[in-house]
């Protein structure tokens, strides 16, 4: 397996640039050196520390050109999927552009994780086409699908680390399975990946000894172990403390740009996700409710979109599940 040398870019997320995340990390904290992707570990200055002040729009243009092709990496047309009686997707069209961070957001239970499983071929749609890098995922043979998956990484909500293996062995796992690299080379690669997520020192720990945030960072190192063309993040920010969340937010953006990845972030954490996304799809009720750059989506006229993006309790979406009047429940 060849080792692709990640390209250094000067692009940084707005959230990282304005010091909301990595810039506010306590220098004395063990996490302070965490957001250091591989090229940075080789001597470059951390992106978050450069004070790059360009706006997100310029970053979008740069990232969009990084793939070298106008074709979207993931192309979804007319996607229909139901679980029993419940329709999850009803004719969804969606494009994931190469080199970009695309956020898929929506309320809980709208099928965001299901979408990732459909893209990765773990689920089969009832109708519609899902193409990844020009290949119809659900028409591939078992072998071809697995070959495609070696070029896709996925960060699961739970981390999904193999609990009987150490951190080192978890990250080394895909390399040992899919390459014939010598052990010394695998060791170096694993240490580089772990350095990138700030956990080189934790390589001998078992998954049960890791915090939730650390487990997810190890899972991220494992997901990028084979230098995939795209990586899918399933609710990466859920249950994270502010420091871990800041580190993860920065890492996702930096990994995408430094390694020329294409990233799909599924989340309902609006502020964090919009801070690093080049493009956002808002999904609800089986449809795409809004799409565009974060600014475009934020400026959309829809009440629903406005309520979701600003987390307002009143609007088209009700906080309370339909119920009889409170008085009648308590007094009747």
């Amino acid at each position, binding site marked *: 397996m060849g080792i692709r040398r990640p390209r250094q870019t000067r692009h940084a997320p707005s959230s990282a640039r304005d010091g909301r995340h990595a810039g506010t990390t306590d220098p004395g904290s063990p996490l302070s050196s965490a957001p250091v992707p591989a090229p940075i570990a080789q001597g470059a200055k951390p992106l978050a520390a450069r004070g790059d002040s360009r706006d997100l729009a310029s970053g979008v243009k740069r990232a969009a050109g990084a793939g070298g092709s106008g074709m979207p990496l993931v192309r979804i047309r007319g996607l229909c999927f139901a679980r029993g009686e419940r329709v999850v997707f009803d004719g969804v069209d969606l494009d994931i552009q190469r080199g970009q961070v695309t956020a898929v957001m929506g309320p809980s239970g709208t099928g965001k994780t299901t979408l990732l499983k459909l893209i990765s071929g773990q689920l089969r749609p009832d109708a519609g086409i899902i193409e990844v890098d020009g290949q119809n995922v659900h028409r591939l043979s078992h072998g071809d699908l697995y070959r495609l998956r*070696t070029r896709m990484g996925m960060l699961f909500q739970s981390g*999904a680390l193999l609990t009987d293996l150490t951190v080192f062995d978890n990250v080394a796992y895909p390399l040992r*399975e899919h390459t014939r690299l010598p052990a010394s080379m695998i060791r170096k690669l694993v240490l580089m990946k772990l350095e990138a997520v700030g956990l080189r020192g934790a390589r001998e720990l078992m998954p049960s000894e890791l915090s939730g945030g650390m487990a997810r960072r190890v899972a991220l190192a494992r997901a990028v172990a084979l230098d995939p063309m795209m990586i899918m993040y399933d609710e990466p920010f859920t249950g994270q403390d502010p420091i871990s969340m800041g580190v993860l937010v920065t890492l996702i953006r930096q990994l995408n740009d430094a390694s020329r990845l294409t990233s799909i972030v599924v989340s309902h954490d609006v502020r964090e996700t919009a801070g690093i996304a080049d493009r956002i799809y808002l999904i609800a009720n089986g449809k795409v409710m809004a799409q565009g750059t974060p600014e475009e989506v934020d400026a959309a006229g829809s009440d629903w979109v406005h309520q979701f993006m600003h987390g307002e309790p009143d609007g088209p979406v009700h906080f309370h599940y339909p119920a009889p009047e409170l008085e009648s429940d308590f007094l009747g």
Partner: protein
Amino acid sequence: MLEPLRELGRGGLDALAGLGRGHLLLVGILMGLPQATARPRLLLAQVFNVGVLSVLIIAVSGLFVGMVLGLQGYHVLSQFGAAQSLGVMVAASLVRELGPVVTALLVAGRAGSALTAEVGLMKATEQLSGLEMMAVDPVKRILTPRFFGGLVSMPLLAAMFSAVGVLGGWFVGVGLLGVDEGAYWGQIQAKIDFHEDVVNGVIKSLVFGVVVTWIALFQGYDATPTSEGVSRATTRTVVHSALAVLGLDFVMTALMFGD
């Protein structure tokens, strides 16, 4: 009026669908065997998990079963003046029936339930999905070595159960009740036939090994990925394995010894 009928039909269809999924899984597991043999360490680890870790319960159970057989056998045989045939009675009971059957039941309870819980929890914690996303087939990588472990361990454990049971019978019959030691071992040597008794017992163990491990792995792999789902699957493993072992034992006994 029609609702119970509809429920019955739905239940039947679900059971058939489950049976189909189970057989497809078995095919997948068997297809992974050539690949798994290329990694003997993985296979040995599972032989250790399923087999070696079950040795204690098998040995202790075998000892007590043999002792009970010695006691009960002596009591019955002495009424007909045939107490000197105690050895062959104990050995034949163990090698033909009790060894394979009780071992299978014990393995289903100890190792089978553990396999189901392990695989079910791997599913619930998305480890199996994680393997799939790393382009690693979880059936071949996780299930096949465990299946192999069960298949290899079962006849070995059954042989151990029978051997320890014969010793337990000897301890009670010869040591405590005064049966002649030469008669005890001599009768075993003379009357236990290698092909009819030992080989048939080994065949039974192999079949039970396949069935118990298959049920355990399928229940784990097919479990609803919640704590309740894994708990139910573990219970189903023990119940289904016990019923399958006892039913198959009757069928195989009828075929092997039914004349």
